[in-house]
């Protein structure tokens, strides 16, 4: 479209660019501020000199955090959770999505199964019932309490199911003519073709498991078993005295109150997500659009 480059038009365009730039900066400035604090000296922080760049550069806070065994143990728990949880989620998602993606005329019980799973999106048990079920199934204080209850993520199943439906029917037909059964069809054809949606779902699952903190707090009896997000919750937000048992932990927590150390903890916990983010970039736009915009 040919437009007249009048002063008025230039001004509007310029202000739009400026506004959007400010908005975008607003989204990263808090993160940059915390990053800068984590690399600054305590003196500079207390004097309020740190804004977006470290003042009196120091890696003292990071030394402390990586030396802190509770932080590192929790990080290990989180890594284990992400690894196990993602594998289980992905396998179950594919196994549930594939049969549900078939048409009713080819798989009669399909509608019944779909309603069985989708109903759980409409009605939830609630905090206490969930806790009781997890207790009764002996998952309390184990890593499985963080993985098993949410093992079948229906929302992801729906995304994958819809994608699989969009694949050409001829693929299935020719595979059946060649004598392949459902397993072969799923493994050799459907899954490889579903890579885009599976990659999206996997990345969201990884981030979800890394960030999830509430389950760790209510299902774990000892802070030693907390995943990183739960551990951070206990030291970060408010030191809830009711949660601390012994005086040694309390003293440790008070020391951790130091701003630079908290900043270092925040940044280290956010780092994996930030590293994965460029890869998410490639997929998330299609992912959201797939999930929200329907014909």
């Amino acid at each position, binding site marked *: 479209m040919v437009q007249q480059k009048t002063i008025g038009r230039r001004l509007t365009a310029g202000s739009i660019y400026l506004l959007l730039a400010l908005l975008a900066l607003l989204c990263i400035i808090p993160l940059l501020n915390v990053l800068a604090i984590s690399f600054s000296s305590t003196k500079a922080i207390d004097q309020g000199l740190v804004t977006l760049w470290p003042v009196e550069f120091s890696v003292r806070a990071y030394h402390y955090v990586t030396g802190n065994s509770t932080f590192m143990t929790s990080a290990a728990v989180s890594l284990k959770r992400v690894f196990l949880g993602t594998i289980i989620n992905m396998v179950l998602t594919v196994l549930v999505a594939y049969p549900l993606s078939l048409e009713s005329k080819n798989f009669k019980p399909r509608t019944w199964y779909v309603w069985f799973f989708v109903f*759980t999106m409409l009605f939830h048990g609630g905090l206490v019932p969930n806790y009781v079920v997890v207790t009764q199934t002996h998952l309390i204080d184990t890593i499985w309490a963080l993985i098993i209850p949410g093992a079948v993520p229906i929302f992801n199943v729906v995304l994958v199911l819809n994608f699989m439906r969009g694949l050409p029917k001829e693929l299935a037909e020719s595979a059946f003519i060649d004598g392949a059964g459902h397993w072969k069809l799923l493994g050799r054809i459907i899954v490889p073709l579903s890579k885009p949606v599976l990659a999206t779902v996997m990345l969201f699952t990884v981030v979800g498991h890394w960030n999830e903190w509430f389950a760790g707090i209510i299902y774990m009896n000892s802070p030693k078993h907390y995943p990183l997000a739960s551990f951070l919750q206990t030291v970060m937000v408010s030191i809830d005295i009711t949660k601390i048992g012994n005086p040694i932990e309390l003293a440790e927590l008070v020391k951790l109150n130091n701003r630079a150390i908290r900043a270092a903890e925040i940044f280290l916990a956010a780092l994996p997500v930030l590293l994965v983010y460029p890869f998410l*970039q490639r997929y998330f736009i299609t992912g959201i659009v797939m999930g929200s*915009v329907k014909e």
Partner: protein
Amino acid sequence: MTPARGRWRQNVPLHFMLLPGLILTLIYSYGSMLGNVIAFQDFLPSRGLFGSDWVGLENFKYVYSLPQTGQVIRNTLFISVMKMSAGLIVPIATALLLNEIAKQWFKRTVQTLVYLPHFMSWVILGGILHDVLSPNGGIVNEVLGLFGIEPIYFLGSERIFPFVLVGTNEWKEFGFSTIVYLAAITSINPVLYESAVIDGANRWQQMLRITLPGMLPIIILMSTLSLGNILNAGFDQVFNLYNPSVYTTGDIIDTYVYRIALINGQLAVGTAVGLFKSVISFFLIAISYTMAYRYANYRIF
């Protein structure tokens, strides 16, 4: 083999595929739905589900009599409605602005940056916000100080706490909705714009007469779907940002249930409130999905 039997034989593997997911969902989703019977019991963990006495609606009557219950429901609704309104205005405005951008690299960079906070958990953001909004030394109050404004205790003042919740939540989530609305804008037929230009419309008129109406289906869809969520004012966020001094305006149903059930140990009462919320939410979600299906052809499956 008849075709029907052949088909049934062939589909046996499908049932096996569904089996693990079925069992897990049965135990952990449906099992916990059944667990709601605790709301009707004088529940003692030692006695379990089958050993505790039945008390009918006692727990519900007790909750109804507590003064905080009404307050908590009002807070939840207020915060939710504010969040839904902001959740429409900010992303739509941003999408419209982004649509005007010609330079692709700028557009992509802005999208990348505004979507970033969505991936931070509220624990991380809680930590960041506690620091950034702090009345002593937090960067926001430092900047306000440059203009001669006194430090504001954002997370401690019950008057502004709900607005801090809405504002920071919007900051975290507007990127997501912006992308959805942007996608909707790009799907508008370019021919409409071209004929408008020929008729002499300027960018502003094009936006009002073509872009906004073109986005209307998606806007209605997103609003309808968010209706079902109205009782979830955002537990993760509130839990990580609140403290007792803002309970009167910041306490929502889910944080209330948490404290009653897990801090006070009144499991049955907490379950009663939770059940109440789940039942109402169920109707809201069912209605909103039905409306989305009828008027916007939206199908989940």
